[in-house]
């Protein structure tokens, strides 16, 4: 885990602009988005479909690059990062939870949880494998799935799969967790359970959470809500 320096925001975005070419025209999705998240802070990102929520998460997750603007992760500017350095940053400091769970079906739940650590450790994996396996088991236990670690994702329910995804996202104790409509594919009750779990674990670990959602009830559970309208962040 990379600790954020005291008083330094986990993530700071300044004037992010992102456009896409659609045929002959250009669609500007983000038009100068700025936001800041402090360690352990949870924020909901709301907006209509196509408002740019996912785009903003992708930019903050270093999976895409803004056309303009600046992103600082733990005070470090990341604009100049190439694909390799961006991948290393994702492996070391960021966690993702997706609406579609995005687990790999060929391997067990525990192996899915181990993946980020396997990737982050690279060649050092072999010497740390026992320790990492213990951490992955602890993460599975934390999401209440200790008994299901050998099951493959298709053998789990939607709620269970999303719990595995949360365990996978938090196993390395990242500084920032980016969740793209994590309850969107779950029924109301399961969604509430998953949300509560995610918020609890993020707060316990001091991980900042930015959660994109349509659901006001989900947003209400976070420390604050950001609204994306016409490519800009409005509201508290």
């Amino acid at each position, binding site marked *: 885990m990379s600790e954020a320096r005291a008083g330094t925001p986990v993530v700071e975005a300044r004037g992010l602009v992102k456009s896409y070419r659609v045929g002959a025209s250009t669609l500007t999705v983000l038009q100068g988005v700025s936001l800041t998240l402090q360690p352990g802070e949870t924020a909901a990102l709301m907006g209509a479909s196509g408002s740019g929520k996912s785009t903003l998460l*992708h930019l903050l*997750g270093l*999976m*895409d690059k803004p056309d303009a603007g600046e992103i600082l992760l733990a005070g470090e500017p990341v604009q100049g990062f190439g*694909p*390799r350095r961006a*991948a*290393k*940053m*994702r*492996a*070391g400091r*960021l966690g*993702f939870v*997706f609406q579609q769970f*995005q*687990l*790999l079906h*060929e*391997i067990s739940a525990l*192996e899915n949880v181990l*993946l*980020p650590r*396997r*990737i*982050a450790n*690279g060649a050092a994996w072999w010497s740390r494998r026992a320790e990492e396996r213990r951490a992955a088991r602890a993460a599975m236990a934390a999401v209440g799935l200790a008994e299901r670690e050998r099951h493959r994702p298709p053998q789990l329910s939607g709620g269970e799969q999303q719990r595995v995804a949360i365990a*996978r996202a938090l196993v390395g104790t990242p500084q920032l967790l980016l969740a793209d409509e994590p309850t969107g594919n779950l029924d109301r009750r399961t969604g509430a359970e998953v949300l509560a779990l995610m918020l609890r674990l993020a707060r316990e670990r001091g991980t900042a959470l930015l959660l994109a959602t349509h659901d006001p009830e989900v947003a209400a559970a976070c420390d604050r809500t950001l609204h994306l309208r016409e490519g800009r962040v409005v509201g508290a």
Partner: protein
Amino acid sequence: MVRLTLSWLFRRPVQLLAVLGVAVGLLALLVVLSVMNGLIEMNRVGVRALSADLHLIPAATEPPAKFAPYAAALAEVPDVAAMSPHLVAYALLSVPGSTPNLTRTQNSDFAQLQVVGVDAEAEARVSGFGEALLRAIAAPVPDRERPFTVPETTFARPGVLISDTLARGLPSRRGAPLRGLTIELGALPWKLPPAGQELQPVNGKFTIAGTYASGDYRLALDRIYMQRSGADGLRANLLGTRAPDFTEVLIRLAPGADPQAAKFAIREALARAGLPEPGGALGGELVTWEERNHVFLRAIENERRMITLVLFFIVVVASFGLFAVLSALVREKVRDLGVLAALGCTPAQRGGLVLVVGAAAAAAGTGLGLGGAWLLVRNKDAVAVFLRDRFGIEIFSPELYVVDGLPAQWDGAAAGALALGTFLVGIAFAAAPTLRAALLNPVEALRYE
């Protein structure tokens, strides 16, 4: 990651088909190559058997060279262990009682025969002549030290030895034994008469004293042996006493002697004896058996190279299957690759995953092909018997090829090199899908449906 890679490799049947394609391609290449090696070796042994280490053809002088001074000069060279003079005539063969029409196509095998006069004892010392008599099938001679001795009949003629192959082609003998059969040879004179004068062949009757075996099919159809000298010899019966007493000398070198150094020493010995240099202005030559047969040996070697090249292209085509299945893998797993990218997989790690799958498939195909080919070559005769008995497929007819079994020789170095080549071709075909996996955009990959 290892488990993920293994699942990508082994839980997709199409991947296994690609592995099988590479394996079958390499197996076919190595088996055919081994059979070619066997045939080539068989030919080399066949050519070598009735040759000697060195062949000396004297320079063309007038009058023709005599053997005695050459024998004396050669005896001075320490590397020369034994020598055997040959006297060669060219003749046509017919069997009395069969059609005498020499222009018939069926008689073509009996035209332009080489009648080689030898001293049996000396010949056995320099070449595989003795073994060739021992391995004869059609009419083995009863006494290999006196192979030209004919059965004691009233009408016995000078004895000759023909090959088993030629014996099979002789006109119908109506059940008469081959030994003792009379043949007629019409020989060209030892030198052409002046222009405008009539060319007069000499013909004579001879008795088959026995047969010899030859692995060299060309030589077997061409060569008849008889005594070089004496009342039953080639000079007395076909060429005339004014003909030379030898036309070439076969030389066996002492064990460990270097042929090129021996050639040099022989040239010096001939010069000291005042004999013309072979290969000089008056012609003649002094060559090793391989140099003498270099056109044939190069031709069969060339055949092997061509077949290797053609079959390697088949392996390349088979390896193309790897490219297809790896491309399909990247397309099929694009979301998984996107997830891995989101989790922090670098482009090199993503490409590496696909490359490992490709390399593992190429290695599995190569290993299967190499192992399968080795097993098949090792058990070639059992496989041939199985195919013949079970399916009636005769893959190598002994009657047609004059061999006892399917010849095959495993060349470990060549097999290893071809296996490595196959593996590298597989890796090369994995390069494009690897690049595609490495360069994919994580956002687009996650949105891929």
